[in-house]
């Protein structure tokens, strides 16, 4: 579901999913399903946080001239 999302998009999605629990749309019957969805995103975020690395590129340009 969220495979193509960036880490920040996933965090935003999690925030949005969680907001539902505090909104007037909250329905207990749907809560468990929504909770499972939020848990799935949370696990993906944790996995991404563990795996992602910064890409560091040192420019070859010579700034001394």
């Amino acid at each position: 579901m969220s495979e193509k999302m960036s880490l920040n998009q996933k965090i935003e999605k999690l925030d949005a999913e969680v907001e539902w629990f505090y909104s007037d749309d909250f329905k207990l019957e749907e809560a468990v399903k929504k909770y499972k969805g939020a848990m799935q995103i949370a696990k993906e975020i944790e996995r991404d946080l563990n795996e992602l690395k910064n890409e560091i590129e040192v420019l070859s340009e010579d700034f001394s001239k």
Partner: protein
Amino acid sequence: MKDSFTPTEFIGVVNQTLDYAYTTVLIEGEVASFKINQGKWVFFDVKDETSSISCFMPLWELRIPIEDGMKVLLRGKPKITKLGKFSFTVDAIKPVGEGNLKKAFEMLKKKLTKEGLFDLAKKRPIPKDLTKLGVISSTGAAGYADFIKIINARWGDMKVVVAHTQVQGLDAPDQIMRALSYFNEKSEVEMIAILRGGGSADDLACFNDEKLVRAIAASKIPVITGIGHEVDESLADLAADVRASTPSNAAEMLTRDKVEEKIKVKKIIDRTEQVILQEINRAKVINREKVEKISRGVIVKYIEPMLEQCQDKMENCVDVIKNKLKELMGALEHKMRLLEILNPEKVLEKGYAILSGKISLGNVVKITTFRQEIEAEIKKIKER
């Protein structure tokens, strides 16, 4: 060698020789007779206790305020002018010594503040969710290594493009400015970090270069500085959009912390669980209240009237039983009274006697009175 030179030829030869002998010369001395001509040219002498050298430089090369009495380091080339005077053409100048650096710093700060270069209203924040960062630093410096170590430890979703430049010395400002131009014109970075670890006031003096400070203030891309230590303040810091106290602090300001993010996500999930549990409990309470309400309704509408009816009926039954018992008790008392009347003892009490035995002459019979039993012999029998 020629036998003779024209003055022009000789000056040309001497200048060529000087060029060859002294490609670049550094001179340290005290400034005297400082003046600016036509708003373009700067003239001054640099001297020590016994000697003095006339110096010249274009005004645009003067990138830090200078005044008489200030001790400076000059970089330039010696030259003989067309009028045959010895001159030193300066291409870089910087104050020397903490007092002079501080004085030049304050003078330039005052000038640039007046121009509004450091206005807080112009400051731009660090972009949210930074993904492309430009770094200007010396890749061999400890401050740069600290920065990279910290961003890698804290976060992991960023492209960092590094421009390696000098970060101290007379050439550093130009190199940093070229890197700034590069990022502004040829890259897609969202923020530029200018980094340099701690050092002496002299080491950090390049960050008070007027041209560099103006270039930082004019950058289209927001700039963060992490220069020196907490206590060091440069004009580059004041011109930047965001000032970090050190390169490490810049790394912390530019990135979120993975560990904090994990804790945040866990808290979000925990809170969500709590919301569900609270709602379940709330639903249970509501449900229980409804059941109680229904029960109360049933009791009031059906059970209580039935109980009242039962009670009435029970009371009626008790009354009937009581009446019946009363009647029975009355009948019993009547019979008891009758029995009492018919009791033989009562008859004897009244003075009558009972004769028992065979009535025949000479026979002995038993006479029972209220108080006595008598045996008597029959002596005479006559019919009544």
